[in-house]
């Protein structure tokens, strides 16, 4: 984990309401593991005391990129940051995805731009399996070609049917699971990122079918390093539950650990 002054290399509209920012981060970039995040100080947001956490989309020796949507004050202010500006980052933070288990068939499930947090996992996975991407409409489905280029079989669903099959991403997952009954459930391993409701639905399917599902959870954070105990979630224990820190113990948790 490091604190680094990074320089904006690229910043542009990616698609619709989604933007891509690429930062020169030669210290943090090479350290990023799939599923980890960075904590970014938004320039010129002077009366905001908190950083903003972002999943890492891509990372290499030069730096890293973030795919984000403008959803609040922080991301709105971020849109004005120009190429060449300095941005302070803490990272890489948190416990990301484990490697795909031996002899496991990986399945990705993403809601909207949640698939950005799955990209590095998709890249390093020795087996390229099936990726289910869901969103409200066509403009919320991102990076299909990028995942296909890595060798993944991408299946798209949208709420309004404007791209792919009409319905929820979990509908598509359910029909696929039904059709793959001959594949033993135990050989599947899911990796998911998206809205809370989708993560719970994916987790329920994993628990019901006896396979593992690694869920990237999203909670409001303050410190990002495990100190303030803002972003806690309930994790099951032998005797009940305990608070686990989304920023440090997560953001990735196995579905069976989470007490919803």
């Amino acid at each position, binding site marked *: 984990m490091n604190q680094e002054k990074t320089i904006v290399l690229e910043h542009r509209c990616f698609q619709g309401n989604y933007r891509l920012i690429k930062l020169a981060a030669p210290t943090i970039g090479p350290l990023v593991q799939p599923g980890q995040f960075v904590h970014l*100080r938004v320039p010129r947001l002077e009366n905001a*005391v908190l950083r903003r956490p972002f999943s890492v989309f891509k990372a290499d020796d030069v730096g890293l990129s973030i795919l984000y949507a403008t959803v609040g004050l922080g991301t709105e202010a971020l849109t004005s940051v120009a190429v060449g500006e300095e941005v302070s980052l803490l990272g890489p933070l948190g416990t990301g995805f484990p490697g795909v288990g031996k002899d496991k068939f990986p399945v990705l499930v993403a809601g909207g731009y949640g698939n950005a947090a799955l990209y590095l996992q998709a890249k390093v996975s020795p087996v390229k399996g099936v990726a289910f991407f869901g969103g409200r409409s066509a403009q919320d489905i991102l990076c299909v070609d990028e995942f296909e280029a890595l060798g993944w079989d991408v299946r798209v669903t949208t709420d309004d049917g404007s791209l792919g099959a009409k319905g929820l991403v979990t509908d598509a997952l359910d029909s696929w699971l039904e059709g793959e009954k001959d594949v033993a459930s135990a050989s599947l391993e899911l990796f998911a990122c998206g809205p809370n409701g989708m993560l719970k639905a994916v987790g329920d399917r994993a628990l019901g079918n006896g396979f593992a599902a690694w869920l990237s959870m999203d909670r409001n954070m303050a410190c990002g390093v495990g*100190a303030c105990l803002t972003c806690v*979630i309930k994790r099951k224990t032998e005797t009940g539950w305990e608070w686990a820190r989304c920023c440090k113990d997560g953001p990735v948790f196995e579905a069976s650990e989470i007490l919803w």
Partner: protein
Amino acid sequence: MNIPDLKVKIGSIEMKNPVTVASGTFGYGPEYADYVDLDRLGAITVKGISAEPHVGNETPRTFETASGMLNAIGLPGPGANGFCEKYLPFFESYSVPLIVNVWGKTVEDYGRVAEILDGPARVNALEVNVSCPNVKEGGALYGTDVDLFRSVVDEVRSKTEKPIIIKLAPNVANIKLFAKAAEACGADGISIMNSYPAMGIDIETRKPQLANRTGGLSGPAIKPIAMKLVWEAAQVVDIPIIGMGGVSTPEDALEFIIAGASAVAVGTANFTDPSTAVRVIDGIERWLSAKNIASVDDLVGTVKT
């Protein structure tokens, strides 16, 4: 240019500079060790510990506001014995003085946690939290009723030989009363201030922004409130005051020192930038040096009123 003397003494603790971190913003120590050379700090003040483990509040626990944030974490923690087992070994490789913030639901609870922490040599002082706005039992009540306040300070004093620093509540009619009571009960120092009781509401859901409904406001928004309280308390006590509330820059720290604080704590600004405390230390040294002031002590309480 001279090299100014930054040393500060609070009871028997020798701080090599006047900057610590505010309890609750720095975890139990290890969390920030990758970002901050802990031994550069004057002292580390760790998150509130009670005699028994405590689970804390439901979420959401924090909410960002203009130049600050609300929190109602609710003092989750491993308990005094759990803290000693889990975190004290970490501090063996550091020389920085360790101040442990303690709290209780009853006067006896305060005594028990003080008694347990009186044992380990690595615990250098206790900061007594009589002012947490976010726990239903005890908490703020001990900080706002001067008789209850005295009973807590007396109890802690009777259970430990270590320096005790009393962290005062800001929401009292007369801070001088509490500052004097702390000194009279044998406290070695005073921390001013805890976060200010506050609230935020989501207009769409009409629900409070915090699960606990109300919380404590911290950050630059409260600095002028803390400044007045430090200035008032400094007029009536001789024991050192640790000033806190919105310290983000060396200038903020110097302002507190001029108001009457012997030391300061960096709180919410640790979240904004983990290197804040070290920048504040370096900035204080540079400023004193530029002004040819020999020691930080020479600046304490020099406000011209």
